[in-house]
Each structure stands twice: as C-alpha cells, then as structure tokens.
C-alpha cells in the first residue's frame, strides 16, 4: 500500500522573509514577521492591505518578465545549484502566471499579442526549460492553494514509476491585483496581517514566492530528507469555503500517511496550512483532532503569520521549511498569534514527543475544497519498492462539445469531414442543466458541466473517483469581467462571484460539487497540451489495481477580447474556436471497450537545437508506429504550423507511416484543448469501425506537434467485435 520515498536532492526558496532556504528559516525561527504594505505593487484603494512581498528587484535585463516567472527562476537556480545533470521533467503549481503584467497591459489597452507571450499559467514551467537544460515533460497544475503540494506529489510519482530520474518541482505565484482584490472581495483578508490560530483572527495576507525541490531517484540515505508520501482529496462542499468539520482535509492527511506507510503518532511536527481565516484554521484543527483521536497532537505551527499566503507556492515553500526543520532540528513558531483560539483545542507549546524531528506532515488546503497533504522526513531503513508504470484506461463513455453542438452533432460532422469550429451556442451548452445550478457560472464551467453530464457522470450515478481537467486558458469570461469591473470602478468594487469563478480550478471544483466526487481533483494547464497533461496526471495517480472509474476532460472557451491577445493560435490568424471532450475511464480492463493511454509528452526550450526526431522518439517509439496504428490524427497548431509540418514530414519518413492522416485542427478548430475533442472522436471511431478507414486490430494515434509534442493512443478492444455505444 505505501510507496517508495523520494530523495530531496536540492531546494530553492524565495519569499517575503528572504531569498534562500537558510535565510528564510533563520528569519522564521527568530519569529520575524515579513508582512507589510506593498511597495512594488500599487493598489489604488487605501488603506493598503499588508502583504508578503518579496524584497527583490526584478532582473534588469530589459526582458519584460512577469514576477511569477522571475521568482521561479530564482528558486530554480538555488535548487539546481551543485548539480550538472538537467531534470527530466518540470512540474509546477501556479495560479497567477503572468497576470501581474497582463493586468497592466490590459489597463493600458495594449493589443499586441507579443506583449502577452508569458500570460499563460503554463508558461512559467516552460520558461525554466532553458535555464535548467530540461528536455522532457512539463506539467503545470493549477489547483489554487494546494497547487505546490500537488505538483510535488505528481513529481514523486514520475520518479516512483521509473519514468524520470530527476524532477524539478514546486510552486510559484506573484502578487497581482486579481488576487489582492479578489480575496478582499471575499472578506478573507485580515487588514492587520494574518494571525493564524488567534482567537480574533480575521483572515489571510496575500503573498508571493517560489519554492522548488529537485527530486531524484537515488535511494535516500540516513542523512537525506525525502518526500515520503502524499495524499489528495476534494471537499465537494463549497466553491470558496472548506468543509466545516475538515472532512476532506482529514481524507487527504490520511491518504498521505497511508502513502508514506506511517501512522499519525510518528509525526513529529505539523506544518499547518494555517492561513489565518476563521474557517480554515478551525476546519484544519478539527481534521487533525479527528485523526489524532485520543492522542495529543504533536507540535504544530503555521508560517503564514510570518510570510503570508503565497497561494500556489505555499505547499512547496512549506515542504522546503519542513525539510529545514529536520536538517536543523528546530521548529518555526506560529508567528502572529498572541492569543490562541480555545475552540481549536490546540496547544502551541506542545512538547516534542522524544526531542527529535524526523517526520513532518505539511498541509495545503485550496479554494474549491482542493486538499493536499505531504509527509516529509527521514526514509525508513527498508523502503518499499517502486510502483509499476500503470495500465491503459478502458473507455467507458465519452462526450464532445463544439461550435456545432453537443456529442452527436459534433461527431457526425467530424466524420463527414466537416468543420465544427466556432463558438458553441449557449442554449446548446445549457440544455438540460438546472438553471439554479448554473446561474453564477459563465461559459467554461457550463461547458464542463455539459460534458460531464453527457459523459454519463452526473449526480444520478456513482461519482467518479477522481476528476482530471485540462484547460489552456481557464475561465476567460470571469477573468475578463473581474478585471473590467475592477478597472472601471477604480479598484473599488471587485466582484466576488467573478473572482471565485476565475481561478483555473473553479470549473473542476464545480464538477466535484455537482457529482459528489471527493477524490483527486486536478486542473492542468498549457496553451497546447493541457488535456495531455490531465490524462498524464490520471495515469501517474492511478491507484494500482484498486481504483474506480475517473473523469478526464479538456475544454476551453474562446473570448472575443482576450483570446486574440492571449492565445498564440488566434493571434496567428486562426478563427475563434472552443469546446472540448470528456472521457469516463476505468483503470480496470473491460473486454469490448477500447483503451486510452498517453504515450509521451515533450517540451523544448525556445530556440532549441535538438532534432525534432530525437524529441519525437521520446514521445512515441518510431518502430512501433506502422505496426500499431492504422489512423493518425495530427494536431498542427496555427501558431507553429510551419515547424509542425516539417516535424510531421520527418516523422512520416522515419516511421514509414503511409496510412490515413487527419489534420484534425482543420475540423475541430484551433483551440488549446482541441486534442480532447480529437481523442473523443478517435474513441467514437474505435467504437464503430464502419465509420473509419482504420484497419481492424489497429489503433488510432493522436499526435500533436509544434512547440509541444504529445502522443495519445486509442487502441481497439481486446476481444473480437468492438462494442458500439457512446454517451
């Protein structure tokens, strides 16, 4: 049941308290508070709320780098110091991306898409490829305040499954008006600075920072600190508030302990999520109380009273701090709390059990009820073996949505070689959805609800065990409307509804609320391969042999004002297109059902000189292609079509593939998660071979080329005649 410990080989940390793990830890243990009014960031509304701002001047190299990106670069430099070998993958948790810069650009009405090149949440990880020399996968998760911890857990799976030898992982976020005013509009900010666990605490302090860990596959020795385990869950309770009894939090903690193979009684210190909001601190205390049962709690503290809440960076920063407590055998105090709340039943002066700190539990509970917990510590003497690579999923159901309409209309048009591009009719999206359910939701969450319903995963049946959602650009309507109203009202009247809806993981959180799905709930993001990343995450987090069916989906909305600026394909002249696809997948094999698997994903630094065929070999082995696949759907994004077509020609020559080829974006439209729609199309064709020229017994390959390369395989059912059926 428990899994192999993963060695922490390097660490980097930048936050309000300092710019290295050592300086930050020294400041924390000295009880210093680094929360103060912003200086680099200039809110229009007074008084200014205190924040955790990083006291670093941005690099003066003339490159307009958004702050999230330069914070991540700083932490990456530290984490990679002392090693020459590049990581095989980069996994980051991010919520803000380039938003701090984008806000300025939008307010100045800058229309040139080149200025927005680093807006994408997924662009921070891509930006690190050059500096680290990484050639391989990039994964970006955006699950609000749990993102950094989720990223570390995903990275650990890459190593445990023998896919990667070294992974650079963590989280980063910067201050921006969207989050500063967004949390303020929810009345979640303490205008005197966060005071976690305090009796009269009033809220959090927004902050920025970056925490990165270099994880590798060296078996941890007695002097090493390792990531021992992790656990994820979703409250499925409320879009912005935690479950009051901390049920989801407790589930994540228990999953982390089980994954680490340890009991709660062996935890020497708990690094709390401890934001300082009345609701979080109480729910978290209740969760811990529930798990501890009759035992006393170990020492615990939150560092957010000292450095604030750096959102996606929090889980990773706190993992670094957890490692520091073990290295230095010292605990950071719960800065900011003078008068502990008796309702929490927490003893801030709890003595250490036997004087040593060998094992730390670190909690990160995000917006939308998205929970993560990590166990960090000295590895056991005889650790369990590494996990197997995971099995293909069986496809139990699927659905699509496009400018043409829902599943049947979309698939019929695609198979008839017609285009389904364009914007979806709102009436089609809303059809069959309860008006009361969707009244506060704008386009993207309505699309994902419609896809989930059409896939057969609505609340009538058993909830999916987990939800993995990929989106290139997130909820553009809510983001646009929030910023427009913020600017028009001179920052005085931000919309709470639009803020809650604007976070990338809001849509997946709504799906959890609607279906009752309380397991893993991940949102991945990338301008080209968000769906591939979602499918990859589902594979990495498969509960070997004992998991239930999961929902994997990809969707994007096209926004008339934002897409032309942010989306490189639209900027390159592609007409607005939107939609997506959803698949109901089962890790258990089902005879008669086709299978689905992500074969590989590869990113390259801008201006890379690596041969495309070398990259492609990492994505799908050349020699297997003609034998296994009878139809190839190739994705050639408008923004890099020239390069992608050259790659395709080289690939066809190398593989000798001469079978049918569909340039699918000409039909699905050019949008970030078009591959989700293509995958559903492939599943439908596999279900009904009369519709396709793919020879029986062979699979369909969805090959994506250009800046990002990815390959997804849909393979025929194991026995004889395939079953016909779609949602």
């Amino acid at each position: 049941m428990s899994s192999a410990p993963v060695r922490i080989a390097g660490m980097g940390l930048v936050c309000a308290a300092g710019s290295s793990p050592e300086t930050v830890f020294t400041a924390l243990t000295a009880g210093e508070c680094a929360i103060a009014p912003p200086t680099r960031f200039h809110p229009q509304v007074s008084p200014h709320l205190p924040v955790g701002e990083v006291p670093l001047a941005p690099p003066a190299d003339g490159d307009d780098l958004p702050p999230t990106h330069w914070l991540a670069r700083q932490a990456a430099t530290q984490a990679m110091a002392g090693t020459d070998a590049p990581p095989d993958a980069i996994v980051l948790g991010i919520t803000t991306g380039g938003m701090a810069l984008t806000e300025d650009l939008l307010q100045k009405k800058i229309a040139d898409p080149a200025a927005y090149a680093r807006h994408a949440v997924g662009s921070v990880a891509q930006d690190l490829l050059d500096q680290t020399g990484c050639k391989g996968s990039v994964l970006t998760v955006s699950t609000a305040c749990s993102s950094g911890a989720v990223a570390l857990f995903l990275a650990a799976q890459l190593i445990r499954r023998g896919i990667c030898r070294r992974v650079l992982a963590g989280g980063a976020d910067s201050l921006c008006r969207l989050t500063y005013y967004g949390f303020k509009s929810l009345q979640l900010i303490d205008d005197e600075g966060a005071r976690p666990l305090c009796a009269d605490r009033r809220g959090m302090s927004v902050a920025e920072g970056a925490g990165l860990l270099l994880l590798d596959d060296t078996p941890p020795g007695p002097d090493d600190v390792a990531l021992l385990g992790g656990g994820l869950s979703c409250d499925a309770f409320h879009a912005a508030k935690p479950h009051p009894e901390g049920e989801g939090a407790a589930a994540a903690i228990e999953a982390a302990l089980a994954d680490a193979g340890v009991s709660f009684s062996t935890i020497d210190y708990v690094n709390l999520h401890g934001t300082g909001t009345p609701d979080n601190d109480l729910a978290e205390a209740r969760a811990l109380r529930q798990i501890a049962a009759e035992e006393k709690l170990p020492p615990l503290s939150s560092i957010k009273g000292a450095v604030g809440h750096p959102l996606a960076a929090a889980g990773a920063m706190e993992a670094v701090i957890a490692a520091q407590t073990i290295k230095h055998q010292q605990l950071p105090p719960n800065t900011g709390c003078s008068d502990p709340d008796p309702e929490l039943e927490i003893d801030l002066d709890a003595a250490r059990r036997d004087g040593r700190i060998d094992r730390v539990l670190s909690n990160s509970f995000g917006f939308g009820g998205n929970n993560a917990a990590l166990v960090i510590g000295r590895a056991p003497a005889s650790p369990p073996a590494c996990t197997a690579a995971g099995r293909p999923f069986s496809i139990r159901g699927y659905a699509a949505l496009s400018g043409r309409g829902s599943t049947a209309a979309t698939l019929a048009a695609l198979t008839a070689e017609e285009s389904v591009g364009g914007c979806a009719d709102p009436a089609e999206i809303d059809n069959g959805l309860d008006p009361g359910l969707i009244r506060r939701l704008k386009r993207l969450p309505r699309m994902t609800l419609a896809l989930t319903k059409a896939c057969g995963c609505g609340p009538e049946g058993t909830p999916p065990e987990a939800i993995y959602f990929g989106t290139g650009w997130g909820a553009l309507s809510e983001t646009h409307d929030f910023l427009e109203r913020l600017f028009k009202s001179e920052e005085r009247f931000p919309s709470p509804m639009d803020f809650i809806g604007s976070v990338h993981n809001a849509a997946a959180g709504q799906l959890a609320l609607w279906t009752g799905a309380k397991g893993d709930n991940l949102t991945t993001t990338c301008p080209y391969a968000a769906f591939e990343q979602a499918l990859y995450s589902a594979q990495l987090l498969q509960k070997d042999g004992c998991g239930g069916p999961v929902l994997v989906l990809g969707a994007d909305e096209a926004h008339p004002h934002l897409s032309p600026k942010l989306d490189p394909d639209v900027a390159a002249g592609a007409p607005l297109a939107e939609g997506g696809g959803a698949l109901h997948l089962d890790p258990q094999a089902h005879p008669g059902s086709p299978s689905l698997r992500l074969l590989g994903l590869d990113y390259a630094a801008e201006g890379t000189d690596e041969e495309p065929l070398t990259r492609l070999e990492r994505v799908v082995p050349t020699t297997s292609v003609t034998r296994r696949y009878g139809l190839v759907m190739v994705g050639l994004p408008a923004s890099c079509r020239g390069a992608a077509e050259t790659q395709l020609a080289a690939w066809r020559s190398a593989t000798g593939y001469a079978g049918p080829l569909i340039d699918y974006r000409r039909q699905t439209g050019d949008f970030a998660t078009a591959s989700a729609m293509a995958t559903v199309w492939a599943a439908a064709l596999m279900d009904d071979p009369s519709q396709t020229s793919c020879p029986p017994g062979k699979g369909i390959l969805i090959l994506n080329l250009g800046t990002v390369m990815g390959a997804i395989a849909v393979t025929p059912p194991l026995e004889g005649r395939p079953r016909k059926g779609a949602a």
Partner: protein
Amino acid sequence: MPNLMQELPKKIVATLNLPDIDPDEIDPDEQLVGGRLGIDSIDVLEMVMLIEKDYGVIIDSKELGAKVFASLRTLAAHIEGQAGELPN
C-alpha cells in the same frame, strides 16, 4: 431617496442572476438568504459589493451582514439609515 423596496429586488435578481424569480413577487419580509430564493453566502458577498457601489453603504462584518440581509425590509431600512450622499 428612490423607492428602495421597488429597486432592490430588481437589482438583486439581476446581479445574482436568479432564475425564474419575479422581483415583484419577493415578499418584503421573507427570508432573503437561505430561503426559497436560493441565495447563499457567495451571493451575500456580491450583494455587499452592490450595496456599496450603488448606495455607498459598507457592510463589512458577517454579524452585520446577517442582520441586514435578513429580508428586503431590513436591507432597505439599513440603507436608508446609513446612506449619506449617494455616489453617481
């Protein structure tokens, strides 16, 4: 001061996008939050913003909010009692 009891229900229904609710049929004393209208805590925050923007009245605590948003009548009374100059 314009007729708040006429104006408020229309603004609330529009801002919160309440489906199938006729503003004229909201009883002045019926429970606004958690009642048949389906208004919840997120809606309350949105209404707080609306009241501040349109009437210049600030509601910045949960306790005050619970009292003020009890019904249309309590909301109108609070605004009338608090509003100084109305912003444009």
